């Protein structure tokens, strides 16, 4: 991956095409007879939500070089902010999104300060504690009146406006898509300008960045805040689309899923975030189907553990595409163009 992706010709057209394709998908619902179409739409929502969460994490890890294993905590914070506002405040779902973003931004900013003193493995450990503490905190008795304790909070799925003629899941897909487009656009802008260069300069050489006049503390804490804010919006969307929040949905495993999506999609790649989001949903589902298929085809007595299949898939993928799917695509493209040039000579 070259770093000047943002200024490459064709980036705008490619992005437009991809988003247009994603926007057309729900329309299949009007022509298909498939009864599980709404379920596919639900999967699409999950993919977009994971893509947003990975986008937040990528800004921090891929572009700023700060690692976090604690993003499940910010995801949870966003989800609960929405759940509590909708449940107790009677807020409309859409109005809770900016609040979730602000709450998580502030939480990320606050965590960014101690993170300044920590690097690499130490930061990984510190954020790890966030991830393991969050489900326990959400179950804490004193706040159970708000969070619903172990049982969590049930919400009402928002109804789509009458005039759209969309089903609830088609509508929520569009909601997720709209949020994803706005957030990807904002991050894209951020990264191609002065702030983005500063964020990446810190990743590549912190000391040199500071002698260029970059205020390291400010940029690192704000990057942490923005990253947490974006992941918080993903959490809020997940609360809205699932219509339910519970502490045990936001464990360390969720953080690891984000990390897997990030690495598989491509570190420091924006299209990679979308790919990573899709990967998280598809591969976790398909590992189960592969397990079922193996049991049936080979007449096995016992199930092949789905997580073992997931692990093998992941290993194989990392072996074939060490810089993620987006990185692999870029390499194939580079190979293709140089091949064309060689033949022309």
């Amino acid at each position: 991956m070259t770093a000047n992706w943002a200024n490459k010709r064709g980036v705008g057209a490619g992005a437009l095409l991809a988003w247009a394709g994603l926007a057309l998908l729900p329309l299949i619902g009007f022509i298909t007879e498939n009864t599980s179409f709404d379920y596919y739409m639900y999967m699409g929502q999950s993919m977009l939500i994971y893509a947003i969460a990975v986008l937040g994490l990528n800004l921090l890890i891929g572009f700023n070089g700060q690692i976090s294993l604690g993003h499940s905590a910010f995801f949870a914070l966003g989800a609960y902010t929405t759940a509590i506002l909708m449940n107790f405040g009677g807020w409309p779902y859409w109005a809770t999104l900016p609040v979730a973003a602000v709450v998580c931004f502030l939480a990320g900013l606050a965590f960014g300060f101690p993170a300044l003193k920590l690097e690499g493995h130490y930061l990984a450990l510190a954020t790890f504690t966030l991830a393991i503490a969050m489900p326990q905190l959400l179950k804490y008795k004193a706040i159970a009146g708000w969070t619903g304790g172990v049982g969590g909070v049930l919400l009402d799925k928002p109804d789509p406006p009458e005039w759209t003629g969309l089903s609830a899941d088609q509508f929520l897909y569009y909601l997720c898509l709209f949020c994803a487009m706005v957030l990807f656009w904002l991050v894209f802008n951020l990264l191609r300008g002065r702030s983005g260069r500063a964020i990446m300069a810190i990743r590549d050489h912190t000391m040199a960045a500071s002698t260029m006049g970059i205020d390291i503390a400010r940029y690192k804490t704000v990057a942490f805040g923005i990253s947490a804010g974006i992941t918080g919006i993903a959490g809020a969307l997940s609360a809205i689309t699932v219509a339910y929040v519970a502490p045990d949905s936001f464990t360390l495993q969720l953080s690891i899923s984000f990390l897997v999506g990030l690495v598989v999609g491509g570190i420091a790649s924006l299209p990679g975030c979308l790919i990573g989001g899709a990967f998280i949903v598809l591969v976790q589902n398909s590992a189960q189907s592969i397990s079922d298929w193996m049991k049936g085809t080979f007449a096995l007595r016992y199930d092949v553990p789905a997580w073992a299949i997931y692990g093998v898939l992941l290993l194989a993928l990392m072996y074939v595409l060490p810089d993620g799917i987006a990185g692999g695509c870029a390499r194939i493209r580079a190979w293709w163009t140089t091949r064309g040039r060689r033949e022309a000579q």
Partner: protein
Amino acid sequence: MAENATPLLSVRGVTLRFGGVVALDNVSFDVMPGQIAGLIGPNGAGKTTLFNCLSRLYQPSAGEITFEGQSVLAVPRHKIPMIGIGRTFQNVALFDRLTVLENVMVGRHSRTSAGFVENALRLPSVGREEAAVRVKALELIEFMNLTAFTDRVAAGLPFPIRKRVELARALAAEPKLLLLDEPAAGLNHDEVHTLEGQIRRVRDVQGVTVLLVEHHMSLVMSVSDKVVVVNFGRKIADGRPDEVRQNPDVIRAYLGTAA
């Protein structure tokens, strides 16, 4: 250089201890505006340590450094380029995953102001500022003969090219004083010759005062208006290259004392 002109940079009694080790011991010297000054001394003499004090990476235990009459030690590290001091590093500290153009554009950080919100929304003011930064960066890339490498990622570039990128990046902030830490290290004979021309052009064309740490004696002696010699953290000589070359203390520091 007029004798009574005010110095651009004034180092007074700078001392720095690391535990029991005295890295710099009461070092004082001046650099006049428009000078090319060389800072030389055997390995471990404290040259880079002094540079690191000037760019606020280290805090001296005692002494004062003033730049245009203003105390440098009162300025936080990231504001140093704003007051007009730029530098390069001995080991070439580029942003490896950014392109040459982006590296030089980062060098312009201190002269620009667009914040997170303006950037995220890509306000018209950001577009204008970005365009100006790009023009300036491309100018410097051309000035340093790097045009062919503009869109190449810094990581894979040959060492001499990397050094030139670093110089272009430092110039992007339009410094009044440029600190060069061993610019000739790792360069071959021809490249050192080119570098000499570039350093002169930086002073003559860009109007930048230069302070360089260097081991390459013939380069220092031919390019410098003034040479400061340090050994074991102490200044042992200060003057015109031909004066310094004759100084018995300097000869002893470099060649050792006769038994």
